[in-house]
């Protein structure tokens, strides 16, 4: 990989790594009496390892000009491998905390393994580690192909990818040490947040630079979704994390917002993170890999445009539905509820687009587990967005909020939509990237598919039951007008569902492990199909039909 870099690029990479190592050194000095010093050491160590990695191949012969004739796919390859590593870690920690809820002794008494610390490790690993790496990797892949242009240089994509993983690592290790600013999905402290801003702005500029070099006049819809994902996440991240640190050598900071403003800013961030991190980016993935894998264009390109702008207009305002019955002004709550309902239009337009694209190709869905992953993702996307709009209605929310129903809803989206579309896209893209005929084992993909689907269904049904039981018990009164059940009564009632949820999660985890193994074995497969497998081995392998008209 380093041999692909030109001498100048190797030098740039070393200089950037050295600058980051220096920054880590300064953090060790400034934060020597604080946990921040530990993170300084981690940053320095990571960048010094990087310098040695590059240095080891520094004198390798320079790459030939021939490299410019091909897309630059090395960062995508590494991104996919990292993504599969994060998913195994993230799902394993997730299942561990699920069992902790069944049996609290499973923390084994350590501080770092308490539920409150491991739970954000789970969410960050799966959302940012798994999802984020998959988004970065596929965005580079899709961007180059739909623009028919190569990435403008070979250092920036690595900076984005490794810089982003450094962010994830700082976040996750921080939680276990107790570093958190207690904002859901935005837990990392100020210096980690600043680092992500640098990485993210670089990512956006890289995207724009590549688009500026495009040879295809039209910007394909996937790129719009990916760009919305990058741009809006930057905006959300910067505003929600505005904070003042206690001192420059101290990890702790205080938010610039307080009270209900803080809550509103947090849920403006939180819900738009769902919208633009967990939806827009993955829709970008879907709008490229689904037509490619099915061998037919998207059913309605017009519908994809309408849903793109619908999502960008409406989602921005939906966050306040997280704050029904709070100190937030009633009209802001109503606004959030109304926009959440309107979101059904763009959401179902995309979900419908998935199913209508596959309409007429159901034989492929039956035979090809990879395509089936994408189909099921579309179905769960439709179901979850319907459920989300429904739960945002104030009277429904009075029952569902603060209960496990919310957890069920989130996982229907995260497991059913986000993870399924990602696994489908990865299974489609790995053979194309590594120039293999196909994945190492189609049987393992099949097994992964059924484990993932069974795990998701068990998880979601367990949490629906648990949530509604919990919500109803909380609002049941006896004749004298006092609450009929104590909090502990509800815990006892939820216990069986917690066991079911942990079992569902375990199935999903086993599926993820099979996926990681399958990807690894595919990479290690001897012999490439490079001679006849271009970017579209799909056509070669299946002899897929001629693309049909879009509408």
């Amino acid at each position, binding site marked *: 990989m380093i041999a692909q870099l030109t001498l100048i690029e190797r030098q740039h990479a070393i200089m950037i790594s050295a600058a980051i190592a220096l920054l880590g050194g300064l953090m060790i000095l400034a934060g020597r009496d604080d946990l921040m010093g530990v993170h300084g050491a981690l940053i320095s160590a990571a960048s010094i390892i990087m310098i040695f990695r590059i240095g080891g191949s520094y004198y390798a012969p320079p790459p030939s000009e021939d490299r410019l*004739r091909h897309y630059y796919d090395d960062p995508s390859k590494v991104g996919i491998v990292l993504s599969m590593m994060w998913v195994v870690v993230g799902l394993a920690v997730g299942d561990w905390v699920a069992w902790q809820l069944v049996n609290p002794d499973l923390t084994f008494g350590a501080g770092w393994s308490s539920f409150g610390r491991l739970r954000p490790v789970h969410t960050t690993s799966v959302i940012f580690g798994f999802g984020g790496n998959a988004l970065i990797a596929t965005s580079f892949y899709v961007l180059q192909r739909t623009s028919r242009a*190569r990435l403008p240089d070979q250092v920036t994509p690595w900076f984005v990818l490794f810089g982003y993983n450094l962010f994830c690592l700082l976040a996750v290790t921080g939680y276990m040490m107790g570093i958190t600013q207690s904002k859901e999905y935005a837990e990392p402290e100020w210096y980690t947040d600043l680092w992500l801003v640098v990485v993210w702005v670089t990512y956006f500029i890289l995207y724009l630079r590549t688009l500026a070099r495009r040879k295809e006049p*039209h910007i394909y819809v996937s790129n719009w979704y990916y760009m919305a994902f990058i741009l809006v996440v930057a905006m959300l991240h910067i505003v929600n994390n505005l904070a003042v640190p206690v001192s420059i050598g101290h990890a702790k900071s205080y938010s610039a917002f307080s009270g209900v403003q803080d809550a509103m800013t947090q849920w403006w961030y939180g819900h738009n993170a769902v919208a633009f991190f967990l939806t827009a980016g993955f829709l970008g993935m879907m709008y490229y890999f689904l*037509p490619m894998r099915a061998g037919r*264009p998207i059913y309605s390109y*017009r519908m994809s*445009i309408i849903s793109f702008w*619908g999502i960008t207009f409406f989602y921005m305002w939906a966050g306040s539905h997280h704050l029904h019955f709070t100190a937030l002004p009633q009209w802001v709550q109503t*606004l959030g509820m109304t926009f959440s309902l309107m979101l059904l239009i763009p959401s179902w337009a995309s979900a419908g687009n998935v199913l209508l694209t596959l309409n007429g190709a159901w034989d492929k869905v039956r035979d090809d587990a990879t395509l089936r992953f994408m189909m099921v993702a579309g179905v769960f996307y439709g179901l979850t967005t319907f459920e989300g709009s429904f739960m945002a209605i104030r009277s429904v929310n009075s029952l569902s909020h603060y209960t496990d129903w919310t957890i069920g809803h989130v996982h229907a989206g995260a497991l059913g939509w986000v993870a399924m579309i990602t696994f489908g896209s990865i299974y489609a893209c790995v053979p194309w990237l590594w120039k293999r005929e196909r994945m190492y084992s189609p049987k393992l993909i099949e097994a992964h598919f059924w484990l993932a689907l069974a795990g998701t269904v068990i998880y979601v049904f367990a949490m629906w039951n648990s949530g509604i039981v919990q919500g109803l018990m909380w609002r049941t009164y006896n004749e004298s007008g006092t609450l009929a059940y104590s909090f502990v009564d509800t815990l006892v009632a939820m216990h069986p569902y917690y066991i079911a949820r942990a079992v569902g999660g375990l199935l999903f985890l086993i599926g993820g492990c099979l996926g990681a193994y399958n990807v690894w074995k595919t990479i290690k497969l001897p012999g490439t199909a490079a001679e006849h497998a271009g970017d579209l081995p799909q056509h070669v392998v299946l002899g897929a039909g001629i693309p049909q008209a879009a509408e």
Partner: protein
Amino acid sequence: MIVEHAFLVGFSKSFGLFYLIALSVAVAIHAMKPSNKQRFDEAARSILRDEAEPWR
């Protein structure tokens, strides 16, 4: 400058409503305009062209 609560509410209830409606109408017209149909169909098919290399 102090922005009154009532002003903000009034602004978001009036302008906020209409600019979103206007944007939605504009997008719907852009997407559904018959003269754009060919462009969009072409775009939908563009990714399926079998090309393994960037254009130079």
